[in-house]
């Protein structure tokens, strides 16, 4: 007899997400549904505005990948207007990207994802001396571990023991401690726990890296259509040194802690079926990101692979990107390209149903209606085919294309862990790929910094001039990989203001519901076949969903109301000097 488990809210993510799984009598997942429960409507709000303002508003789509939508909003307008920002500006934007990826990925693994892997209470049983020695096993060649000396580990243990003794674990209350799929030994738990705390320090440095040329973080404010505004900071050698130093400090941590802990996880979780079960969806899509010189990108692939095949790389054809809303809370349109996206909200809500609750009882709740609409997220498809995007796609497709830096980092990791390449296409692999992407930046990122310094010697330009002709119509787009995968923003400008705006974001690709052809996206399809140890504590599902690093505010803003009055708001953009 099939039973359903509703998990709402999925915590430790950005945004509001529900996942429902249907289990058979052996607690194997037979079906899964992903439903976003918030809609904000930012594209509607963008219509009629000054194109120069778009980036500031799209930025507020998400405060976690805080820079992604800012850069995308600004770049889409530049693309539409035919603006080529100066090289200095392009490289500064890359430096902000490094800061973002560093911050986002380490915080995701340690603060958002780690509690699926690391049993904090078990760490109290660890032998700190043994743990300290063990930490040397996992670091990359040429590195020593960090924050795992016996003294520090004893201190961490003591701190957590005192905290646990209080009898109120606060944010750690009711966690999945002692769950049968928690596989780390007490010593391994202690190592990871120490890094959980250490990351709280390191992430501040990554945020400072962004603030140096970005003004602040979250939500930096130094990009403008045409370039960047931080010209004074670029003229200041102490500022450059500050960035370089902080970059090196975070990069060092990535190798000594983040890389090492993933190697450790690969060892401990290598035989846990829910973690190494192969994905069902084998298509991965990415787009080049992080420009490092006039004509090179750190991740240069613009395309996809099919059916887990790392041997064949396909170039992207942008015209084949479409979105469908059959099961999304919008009026049906069929598959449409984002330039022509027309969507009208149509909330039908949930229906009465039953779920196993936290006690194991079957209770009356609200559930999705799989035959109807059930999410605020749309279903993007490439050539009518679902694709997974994200760090795993970035690493796999760049590997297939022959990106040497990616190949080196991936091959070394596989050699050190003894994992086969196909292990990448699992929950563990997805989590590992995010780390590997961070390591590529850590190991090779300073190239862009050095090129910036070289260029500053001969060129001081930071902004390209432009005009917006009110009598002309423009359209343009940004496509590029951001921390959660391939992001695209598509805009049309008419009468000097934004006529239409559509964003197709990474979590939309991954978290969207089934499309009109019944094909499921990554979240839903990759859960099917997974066995759950205890339906009252579905940690396996939570861990799998976290491995994508969901960002649901990003996923649910997509919107364009046809024929709907936009209110009385008017802007009178003045383009000359005041």
């Amino acid at each position, binding site marked *: 007899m099939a039973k359903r488990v509703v998990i709402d809210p999925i915590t430790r993510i950005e945004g509001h997400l529900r996942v429902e799984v249907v289990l058979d009598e052996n607690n194997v997942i037979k079906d899964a549904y992903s439903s976003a429960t918030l809609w904000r409507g930012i594209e509607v709000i963008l219509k009629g505005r000054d194109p120069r303002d778009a980036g500031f508003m799209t930025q507020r789509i998400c405060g976690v990948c805080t820079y992604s939508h800012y850069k995308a909003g600004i770049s889409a307008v530049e693309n539409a207007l035919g603006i080529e920002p100066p090289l200095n500006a392009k490289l500064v934007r890359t430096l902000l990207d490094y800061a973002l990826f560093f911050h986002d990925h380490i915080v995701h693994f340690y603060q958002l994802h780690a509690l699926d892997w690391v049993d904090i209470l078990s760490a109290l049983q660890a032998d700190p001396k043994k743990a300290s020695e063990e930490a040397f096993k996992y670091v990359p060649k040429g590195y020593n571990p960090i924050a795992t000396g016996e003294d520090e580990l004893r201190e961490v243990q003591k701190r957590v023991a005192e905290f646990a003794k209080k009898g109120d674990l606060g944010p750690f209350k009711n966690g999945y401690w002692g769950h049968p799929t928690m596989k780390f030994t007490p010593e391994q738990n202690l190592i990871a726990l120490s890094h959980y705390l250490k990351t709280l320090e390191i992430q501040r440095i990554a945020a400072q890296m962004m603030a140096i040329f970005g003004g602040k973080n979250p939500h930096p404010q130094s990009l403008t259509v045409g370039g960047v505004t931080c010209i004074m900071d670029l003229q200041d050698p102490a500022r450059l040194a500050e960035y370089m130093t902080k970059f090196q400090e975070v990069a060092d941590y990535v190798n000594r802690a983040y890389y090492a802990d993933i190697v450790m996880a690969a060892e401990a979780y290598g035989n846990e079926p829910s973690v190494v079960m192969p994905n069902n969806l084998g298509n991965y899509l990415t787009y080049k990101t992080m420009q490092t010189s006039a004509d090179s990108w750190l991740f240069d692939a613009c395309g996809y692979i099919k059916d887990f095949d790392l041997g064949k790389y396909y170039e992207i054809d942008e015209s084949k990107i479409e979105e469908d809303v059959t099961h999304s809370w919008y009026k049906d349109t069929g598959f449409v390209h984002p330039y022509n996206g027309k969507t009208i909200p149509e909330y039908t809500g949930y229906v009465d149903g039953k779920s196993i609750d*936290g006690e194991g009882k079957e209770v009356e709740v*609200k559930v999705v209606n799989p035959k109807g609409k059930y999410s605020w997220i749309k279903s993007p498809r490439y050539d009518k085919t679902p694709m997974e995007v994200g760090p795993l796609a970035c690493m796999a497709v760049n590997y297939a294309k022959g990106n040497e830096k990616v190949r080196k980092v991936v091959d070394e990791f596989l050699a050190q862990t003894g994992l086969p390449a196909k292990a990448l296409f699992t929950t563990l692999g997805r989590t590992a790929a995010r780390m590997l992407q961070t390591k590529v930046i850590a190991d090779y990122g300073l190239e862009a910094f050095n090129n910036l310094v070289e260029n500053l010697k001969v060129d001081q330009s930071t902004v390209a001039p432009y005009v917006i002709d009110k009598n002309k119509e423009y359209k343009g787009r940004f496509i590029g990989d951001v921390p959660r995968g391939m992001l695209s923003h598509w805009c049309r400008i008419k009468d000097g203001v934004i006529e239409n705006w559509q964003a197709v974001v990474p979590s939309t690709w991954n978290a969207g519901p089934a499309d009109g052809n019944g094909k499921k996206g990554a979240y839903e399809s990759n859960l099917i076949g997974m066995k759950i140890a205890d339906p009252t504590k579905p940690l396996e599902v939570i861990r799998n969903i976290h491995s994508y690093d969901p960002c649901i505010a990003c996923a649910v803003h997509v919107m364009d109301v046809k024929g709907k009055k936009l209110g009385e708001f008017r802007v009178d953009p003045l383009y000359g000097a005041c």
Partner: protein
Amino acid sequence: MLDMQQVKQRIEKLKKLPGIAPKPIPQLLEENGFSRRDFLKWSASLAATLGLPASFAPVVAEAAEVSDRLPVVWLHLAECTGCSESLLRTDAPTIDNLIFKYINLQYHDTIMAAAGWQAEENYEEALKEFKGRYVLCVEGGVPTKDGGEYLTIGPYAETGLHKLKRSAKDAAAIIAVGTCSSFGGIQAAAPNPTGAVGIHKVLDKQVINVPGCPPSDRNIVGTIVYVILYGQLPAVDNFNRPKWAYGLRIHDLCERRGHFDAGEFVEEFGSEEAMNGFCLYKKGCKGPYTFNNCSRERFNQHTSWPIQAGHGCIGCSEPDFWDAMAPYEEPLANHKFESIEADATADKVGITILTVAGVAIAAHAAISAIKKPKE
């Protein structure tokens, strides 16, 4: 006025409440590797941030020591999590994290271990167990259109609107963290498709607004400490913003103010004037109309702030700024603006004041330009 006696009484009262820690915090701090000196240093810096006289530093330390009595429930509505991210960057150094932990954070869905049914259980228990004693921090605006159906939370698909009202009922204090929960934020910009509003619009209790997109970690942490310190809400301005943080305009302490007064303006980004750090007013800086402490505190451990990075302020801690301050790279005085969302309340008055201020500032800028001595 600050009343030391009142503060001390408050702390005595707090000390008598049952704490969750088995030991006093000073001892825990010491055991966790923080010296008394570090702690007092942090307290002094926080007292300074709060705009308190130096004599208050020991009291701040004492208040922080008893802060684990203060249960905090953090609710996310229509938002982008930027405010939680800002809070995560809090420093001074790791001691802030420790203080944060010892405020007894009962629910915060971005960092808590539990999910689904377990998370729901934590939420309901916190409301029950700490009834009348918890501080409710809210991040995000609240969608109200069509009964609030644009946001549901939990297995029963409860609307955010309903959950907010229910949670506010027994809260000791309510803090709106960020511009969205304070004034509606980005989703409330015209034409406000989901009817999003600041939470004070749907609650019948006082709400302290800590706006900013996002607010700095100093402003968030400082406000929470203020509640602990006084056992009451801080003195606020017309928009319920704590005066200690939002009492001055960005313009008042701006590092480029001299250039404004001298009539030296950046006319184009990337220009010689931009390289020389001239005033950004003509590139749309809203510092003259924006009340916040950015020019004093800056961001990310004082690393920088937008004006230092060469971009004008966009006015992100002001009500309705997404409409009222647009376009962000044009001077305000060039535009006649009126938001359809502003009703006939304080918001409207504020906007009227801003319009007047806009004209005045523009006049000042023009006069400054005339007085420009050379070139």
